[in-house]
């Protein structure tokens, strides 16, 4: 397994994709952090278009919302880089030399999941740092401060990193299940940018399923991070942190298992 991990780490770091996406992630989150911090310190209702019962957002809640923006809006990055680690093997047919070197397919997937967690944590640090750096100027000048000495806020930062790491692991599993790179990226973009946001808001409006939106992966990740753009602005409610972690890890395990036993059992030709 150590051998497979060493090889997988080299595989990841010898192409340019991982740092290109990391730079885009940093820029994107710094931008979002700045925009959201400006908006929320100016007019909290601006973000929801008047939807939801906008509570009195205190400065601490605003800071938590900004600091977890990477989980609310930036998780597509670790998800994509995770998926690419598997779909790239099939796209460039390096799956053949990979399985020649390590015929135990479970070990190949396992190494990718572990490296995915490490890379996801790195993306988590970068994305979270981007949101903090982007938001700080407005929180300090227009808002009620940075709250970076608050244990609760610091916990949000830590769990934001953990949530993004798990997103990357989910991506690896999803890539193992779909294997087709174009299909995987399309599914990820469609689900994260369109399907889940609509489902989350739509399910709330539909009484019998009102609680179901909390179990969607994006909602579970926000629960794990401890805060979200959707919840602090009063639009949606979340599970508590522990259950959020359980649900999110459940998705990671589900996709990895499906990929292992449905797709990776097949002939490679």
């Amino acid at each position, binding site marked *: 397994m150590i051998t497979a991990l060493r090889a997988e780490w080299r595989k990841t770091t010898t192409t340019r994709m991982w740092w290109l996406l990391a730079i885009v992630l940093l820029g994107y989150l710094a931008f979002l952090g700045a925009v959201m911090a400006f908006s929320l310190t100016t007019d909290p209702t601006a973000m929801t278009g008047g939807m939801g019962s906008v509570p009195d957002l205190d400065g601490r809640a605003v800071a938590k919302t900004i600091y977890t923006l990477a989980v609310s809006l930036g998780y597509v990055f670790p998800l994509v880089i995770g998926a690419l680690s598997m779909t790239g093997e099939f796209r460039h047919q*390096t799956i053949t030399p990979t399985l020649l070197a390590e015929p135990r397919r479970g070990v190949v997937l396992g190494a990718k999941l572990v490296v995915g967690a490490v890379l996801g944590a790195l993306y988590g640090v970068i994305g979270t740092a981007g949101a903090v750096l982007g938001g700080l100027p407005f929180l300090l000048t227009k808002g009620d401060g940075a709250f970076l000495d608050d244990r609760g806020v610091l916990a949000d930062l830590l769990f934001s990193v953990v949530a993004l790491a798990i997103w990357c692991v989910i991506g690896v599993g999803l890539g193992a299940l779909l294997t087709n790179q174009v299909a995987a990226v399309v599914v990820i973009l469609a689900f994260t940018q369109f399907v889940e946001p609509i489902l989350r808001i739509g399910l709330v409006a539909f009484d019998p399923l009102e609680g179901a939106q909390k179990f969607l992966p994006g909602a579970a990740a926000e629960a794990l991070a401890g805060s979200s753009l959707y919840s602090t602005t009063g639009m949606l409610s979340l599970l508590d942190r522990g259950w959020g972690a359980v649900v999110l890890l459940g998705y990671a395990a589900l996709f990895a298992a499906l990929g292992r036993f449905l797709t990776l059992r097949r002939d490679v030709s």
Partner: protein
Amino acid sequence: MPGSASAGPPVEIRGLTKAFGAVRAVDGLDMVVRPGAVTGFLGPNGAGKTTTFRMLLGLVAADAGTALIGGRRYADLARPTAVVGAALESASFHPGRSARDHLRTYAPFAGVDDRRCDEVLAQVGLSDAADRRVGGFSTGMRQRLALASALLGDPEVLVLDEPANGLDPEGIVWLRTFLRHLAHERGRTVLVSSHVLGEVQASVDDVVVIAEGRLVHESSLADLVALATPQVRVVAPDRAGFVALAGARGWAVEPQSDDSALVLSGATPAEVGAAAYRAGLEIHGLAEEGGSLEDVFLRLTGGDGVRP
């Protein structure tokens, strides 16, 4: 490891079968590849060569039968790339990775260090391109890198699918010499597939011919050559005289597009020379023709519509 001359393990295939839908790609194939020799694995396109290799290497699951390397399945080898080096037809590299990094990615599995990566790059003549991204490589360079990957773990068995594809003539000569060296001096087991007999004729010791997934011939190259009808190309001013001579001796005259020469089947150059001398016929050129070995290959594989 490097420098050892111990005999490699044999490759033994028994009753190997694989169907894709209604098509039996490989159908009860039996063959043995011995160490210390280069074995040509021949067959027309679609004969099942690549599928056989992929089953041997555990990439494709066989419906029936076994494919063993030194008595063990590929997947059961503790460090497979240190025992078997394989380069398959769809040579597969990430275009954004350099040649050296490609090898470094697989080096941990073979249990080798970065120095060995540079060593095999030098061996296949890619030292100057080591840090270039593979995306810009020519087919021949990719072929060489695929061979370098196969050599990385200094394996006792080499399995190469169409390794001469895309190589320039110089590269083909180099590959031939190199593979013969590995087999004859180092005792390695070398299995090389091709759909063109002529391509491997100069490098193989043994031949295994398959068609439609079945074994049609397994022998030494010499025994295969013995199946061929000898042919002689004659350049002579008196064509009619030679046609008459061939008729008298029972040699067939092959139809030729070119008027200056005749090709006689069933004769050796010595026989034709001797007969012409006795008949007082002038000869300007006399040469043995290799073409009929291709005919044997076509006959064996059913390429001319006639199954043996």
